[in-house]
């Protein structure tokens, strides 16, 4: 039997809900479960309503369900807003000092106040209670708390023990089997996975202006900069961020910027510079609902067409979108290598749900290497824009003896001197087109499309980004076929057509209101019969997807 459980932790901003949710995720992950934790928080510092839903299952999962088994409520709002989610096997663990509900009420506030601890320590009490309710040894939650906190560890463990004991009348209310023989898994967010991949591919400078949902990547790299051998810096705005990163790349080190759609808007002029001057740069766009400020802390997949078409003039670029942290790790590394191999901008499109959720993941750092770009041999005069068969000129960096490295945003000759000559202008444009062709040939050697479910099915679900997690789960359950293009520009038509040639029905599923992948597929001549779109700022859940897919298949929509 496939055991699975979902826990919702809720409270107001400042209650430490996300950390509590992370601790719950850690607990299940250590029990051998596959975990997915979705964080729903508002754009405010104190108050409001924040919650995390942690789903744990024996098989791999990458999406949450609307329904949950356990609610941990720090305030009344959590009970009132989420009570409907409870199903069969259910329990509310709540702070009886300020919440009215049926279930396991514990005086969380009183317990922490008696010990002179701040209210945020209520999380530790409730985690103790949760461990008891799940019938676990106290040492398991003790270790989770110990590894999660930096301060007041013993005090938090003491109140957790109080919670554990206070819940003794509900001990083993749920019977949670340990999943034996499962490989230890890492708990990673998309942000962390993107960072780790780039680090392994030689990232030396990360430059970013804070913007949800990419901010955690800036924090993660800044916190670990010495271990990772890099620097993470915050300049005055996104324009400076990409400018600094491009200067660093010109001088010979691998750099990256991360932002959201709005920040990317500001970077677009420099994107075009990367195209003309042939500067390698990795850009992560964290997608959230727009236009303009939109919903800053929520989910969308709305920047696909923007990232493909952004920038004035015509130049090659690579756009790819990972669907889970494992893909994020390998793609981030691969994109950084590709950016340098072809001296182009590479855009990693990552949605809120991937970046800000936590997933059980297995990655192998040994599978990622730094692929060195073609360098100047030191023979003869260096020409930054030497015409070659595939349009890629050997690199040299300022500081190298005998090389004069002239990078230019104007149309230029091979040496990098500005030109307005028609023949040289034509050759410059053709050099950029040659690189597009070379990139496509390179991608033909890589995994560009992933598939799930039943490959024999005539119903093909097409999706991208983190939406693939839920779509794949539904497809496995109902015997449908799924294709997920990892690369979106150039779109791997050579691969996609293999899966679509015999499809009777193609359904494109994505988190935007206009069907951007569907449009992009049609642009390349593919037939898209149906779309399932969600644009309320929240990711697709398993329940929602299952209902919508069933309806579309039976033409009941």
């Amino acid at each position, binding site marked *: 039997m496939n055991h699975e459980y979902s826990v919702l932790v809720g409270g107001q901003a400042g209650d430490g809900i996300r950390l509590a949710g992370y601790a719950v995720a850690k607990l299940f*992950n*250590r029990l051998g479960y596959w975990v997915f934790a979705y964080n729903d928080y508002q754009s405010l510092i104190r108050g409001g309503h924040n919650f995390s839903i942690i789903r744990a299952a024996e098989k791999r999962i990458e999406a949450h369900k609307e329904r949950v088994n356990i609610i941990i409520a720090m305030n009344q709002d959590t009970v009132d807003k989420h009570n409907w989610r409870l199903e069969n096997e259910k329990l509310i663990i709540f702070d009886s000092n300020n919440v009215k509900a049926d279930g396991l009420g514990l005086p969380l506030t009183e317990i922490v106040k008696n010990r002179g601890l701040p209210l945020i320590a209520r999380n530790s009490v409730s985690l103790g209670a949760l461990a008891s309710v799940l019938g676990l040894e106290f040492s398991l939650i003790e270790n989770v708390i110990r*590894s999660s906190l930096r301060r007041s560890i013993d005090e938090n463990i003491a109140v957790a023990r109080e919670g554990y004991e206070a819940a003794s009348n509900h001990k083993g209310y749920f019977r949670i089997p340990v999943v034996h023989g499962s490989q*230890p*898994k*890492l708990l990673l967010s998309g942000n*962390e996975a993107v960072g*780790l991949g780039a*680090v*392994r591919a*030689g990232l*030396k*400078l990360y*430059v970013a202006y804070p913007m949800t949902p990419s901010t955690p990547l800036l924090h993660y790299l800044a916190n*670990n900069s*010495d*271990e*990772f*051998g*890099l*620097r993470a*810096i915050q*300049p*005055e*705005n996104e*324009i*400076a961020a*990409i*400018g*600094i*990163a*491009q*200067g*660093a*790349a*010109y*001088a*010979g*080190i691998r*750099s990256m910027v991360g932002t959201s759609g709005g920040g990317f808007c500001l970077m677009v*002029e*420099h994107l075009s*510079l990367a195209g003309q*001057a042939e500067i390698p740069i990795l850009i992560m766009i964290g997608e959230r609902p727009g236009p303009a400020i939109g919903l800053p802390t929520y989910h969308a997949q709305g920047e696909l067409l923007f990232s493909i078409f952004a920038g004035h003039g015509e130049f090659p670029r690579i756009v790819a979108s990972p669907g889970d942290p494992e893909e994020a790790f390998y793609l981030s590394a691969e994109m950084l290598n590709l950016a340098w191999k072809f001296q182009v901008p590479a855009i990693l499109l990552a949605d809120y749900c991937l970046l800000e959720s936590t997933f059980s993941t297995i990655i192998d*750092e040994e599978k990622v*290497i730094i692929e060195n770009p073609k360098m100047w041999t030191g023979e003869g005069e260096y020409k930054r824009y030497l015409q070659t068969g595939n349009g890629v000129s050997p690199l040299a*960096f*300022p*500081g190298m003896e*005998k*090389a*004069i*490295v*002239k*990078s*230019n*945003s104007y149309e230029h000759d091979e040496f*990098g*001197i*500005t030109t307005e000559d028609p023949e040289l202008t034509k050759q410059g444009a053709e050099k950029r087109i040659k690189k597009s062709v070379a990139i496509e040939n390179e991608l033909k050697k890589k995994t560009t499309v992933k598939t799930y479910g039943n490959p024999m099915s005539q119903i093909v679900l097409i999706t991208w980004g983190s939406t693939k997690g839920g779509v794949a789960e539904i497809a496995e359950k109902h015997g449908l076929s799924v294709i997920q293009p990892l690369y979106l520009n150039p779109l791997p038509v050579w691969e996609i057509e293999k899966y679509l040639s015999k499809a009777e029905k193609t359904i494109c599923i994505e988190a935007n209101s206009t069907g951007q992948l569907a449009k992009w597929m049609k642009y390349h001549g593919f037939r898209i019969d149906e779309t399932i779109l969600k644009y309320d700022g929240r990711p697709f859940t398993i329940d929602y997807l299952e209902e919508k897919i069933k309806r579309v298949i039976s033409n009941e929509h």
Partner: protein
Amino acid sequence: MSIKLEDLSTYAKNTWCPGCGNFGIERAAKQAFIELINEDKVKREKIVMVTGIGCHGKIADYINVNSFYSLHGRAIAPAIGMKLANPTLNIVVFVGDGDALGEGLEHTVFAAKKNVDITVIVHDNRVYALTTGQFTPTSPKGFRGGSTPKGSPEEPLNPIELMLVSGATFIARAYSANLNHTKELFKQAILHKGFAFVDVLQPCYTFFDTYKYYGPRVYDLQQDGHNPLDWEAALARAKEWNYGGEEAKRIPIGLFFKADKTTYEDAVLSGKDLYDKSTPRINMVLRSHV
């Protein structure tokens, strides 16, 4: 083996107007580079010129050293990235007044605030010349141009004053017609460890001919008893001329202010060489994710 002026020339055809103040800046920059190289203070391959867009930017094509011809207003940010990537580079940013004080003002202010060790040379002709004569941040009030036929309604910005309050640690003004003085200031600015800013008054022969205006008014601060270590005195000298018009009597040129302060790259890198080619291991950090 010493290098000569022609060694720093390229095959690019010069397209500045005859009489353009840019010639003086180009000559002073080349001369400064040559002397620094021949005095063994700077290596030629370590020099990087970063330029914005406008008449001034063409200097990237005319001097045969490393260059990064950037976007309008976007020369300073890439220069910061270069310095972090390779702190041994001597980065000299050539920008127009539109670049440094209009389109890219924030980068100028923040580079000064950071005290990053780069040199910024402003070709301050106080007119948008390449776009055929509009007012800029340093044009005098009442400037008549294509977009202000009745005269500019705005007071000019004083870049010297702006740099003094922004944290720059080397602040100077030059006049492009005084070649030797300009060259000496460039050399000092390049050798200064920290953010060096040189505002070069540069007549635009076609759209804003200021030769007759500057000639009789400029005087050398260093021959007038100014102490560049005195910030208050520097501010008073900066205010002596507010980039105005005919009413001005004396225009100070030379070094206004100089200070020693930790540089941005030293603070950020604390000795770390980012040009390190080894692949970092992530397994230690991964342990915290279980």
